[in-house]
């Protein structure tokens, strides 16, 4: 059977999108959620690159440009998300510490 790679890679991209979505919904840790989003992003990009490949005769550069732009946008979003996640983590760790300290003072 002669299947074009488009099918295999396109389906993989879409499936990665769904896997990432599942991770985003079900994982409790913030860092893991951000990883899941990045997997979704990769899935969408794989899908776009597959569209650019078409039937392998003429390669369409427009989806490639879209992916290049998207990569930079997504790294920016990831950086913001990670900085924010660190911040949330620190804040809540710190408030735990404060609580513990006041509790020990009460005693």
């Amino acid at each position: 059977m002669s299947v074009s790679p488009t099918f295999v890679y396109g389906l993989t991209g879409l499936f990665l999108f769904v896997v990432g979505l599942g991770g985003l919904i079900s994982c409790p840790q913030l860092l893991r959620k951000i990883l899941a989003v990045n997997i979704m992003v990769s899935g969408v990009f794989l899908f776009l690159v597959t569209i650019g490949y078409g039937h392998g005769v003429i390669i369409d550069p427009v989806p490639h440009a879209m992916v290049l732009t998207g990569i930079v946008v997504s790294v920016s979003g990831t950086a913001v998300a990670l900085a924010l996640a660190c911040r949330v983590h620190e804040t809540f760790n710190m408030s735990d510490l404060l609580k513990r300290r006041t509790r020990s003072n009460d005693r």
Partner: protein
Amino acid sequence: MMGLLLKNDCWLIWPFVLPLFGALLSFLFKQRPRLPGLIVALLTTLSSGVLAWKLVRHGVGRYDLGGWQPPLGISLRGDGPAVLMVLMTAVTGLAISIYAGGYFRSRIAKVEDERRHIIQERFFWPLWLLLWGALNGLFLSADIFNMYITLELVALSSVGLTVLSGKPASQVAGMRYLLVSILGSLSFLLGVGFLYKAFGSLDLATIQAALSFSPPVAMAMALISVGLLLKSALFPFHFWLPPAHANALAPVSAILSGLVVKGSWYLFFRFWLGFLPLIGDGGNAVMAALGGAAIIWGAFQAFSQQRLKMLVAYSTVAQIGYLFIIFPLTGAGAGPAASAVFYFAISHSCAKAAMFLAAGTIFLQMGHDRIRDLAGVRQLLPITSFAFALGGLSLMGLPPSGGFIAKYMYLSMAVSQDRWWLVLLIVIGSGLTAAYIFRAVSHILSPKMVHGQGQVVVAPCMEWSALALALVAILLGFIAPLPLALLGVTG
């Protein structure tokens, strides 16, 4: 050379180029970001006004960026709805900018937290101007991938503004907001991919001209709709909105509730109308059902809130519903329905921003915003209390206000199309709105002598800018023909 920069069609680029410039300037002049910020806000408002005037004079504007025709290049399109949204952003944005100038000055005057407030102001201006430029770019864009980038810009800068307050609650809310909006953007981008695969073009007009039903197109439509609904916080997707909007700084709350939500809704409206032949009544009914649920649920939640800013935030959840119950009414022609819903959008934007600004002033003065303990605000802040009440009036849809005109148009359309359940919904929704607005206003206006002064000296421009916005929301009831004429320029 100056003449070339002010050519007719060039006015389409200034509403987003000027704020982008301004963002860089206020980022660099970090000692006094307020000055470039306010100047650029004024210039952007002026250029938006000129754009609207040019639209009325010369009709719909088109602009090929880079000089390349659409399927290959990106083009801008300034038709009635787009320019009206740009104008709405300009009016609301100018008032918010003036408010923000006074707001940060008042807060910096509280010496204890001076340094943090200086840093907040320093990053407020670049983020806000960038958001303004991105919103204008979004309204004017005619290219679906370009819409994705402007959506990302809007989402990221909104998140940045949300977490600016530094409160733990706002950080958690901002984190959730960020994840939800990235998810929405990704869904949108995947939809864009499907559309490109099916039509080989990224230009929205080209795609809509070649529209025909096929599974990929249906999937694209579903993905784009879900992505945009997530971002515009329609009922089941509203969970992230109230904490994010209520815990932000006062001008930021006004920006998020008044403007940002409208950005993704505007795109949804454009896509949905363009794809209407494929969607049919079923999809419209689903949207109306979700909108109706939002109206009822949001109003009940707003009524049961203890904090003023949470009340106003849940009121946004409810009012978003009105933006979506319009879809069943588009059957008899998109024109009148579009007029009604855009009129609702602009008057809601002014009224809601005014209310959030007023609530922020009250918070700053009292040091809290517990509704139960707000008696006496009338004596301390008469203008602000009046502005809050006027904004509420427009939100309820009482006669001499923009909200009234919009609801009147909704009702007359619903009656003429025999959709009585929609009439019932709008009436019930207005009643519920009146209930929660009265609950807040009755506490604010209740007479009680207060002892001593409030916490800080509130700058006069904070009070007056909120009042000006509330007055615009009322004034929209008197000048309805003007915005409607602007809206009518399509083609």
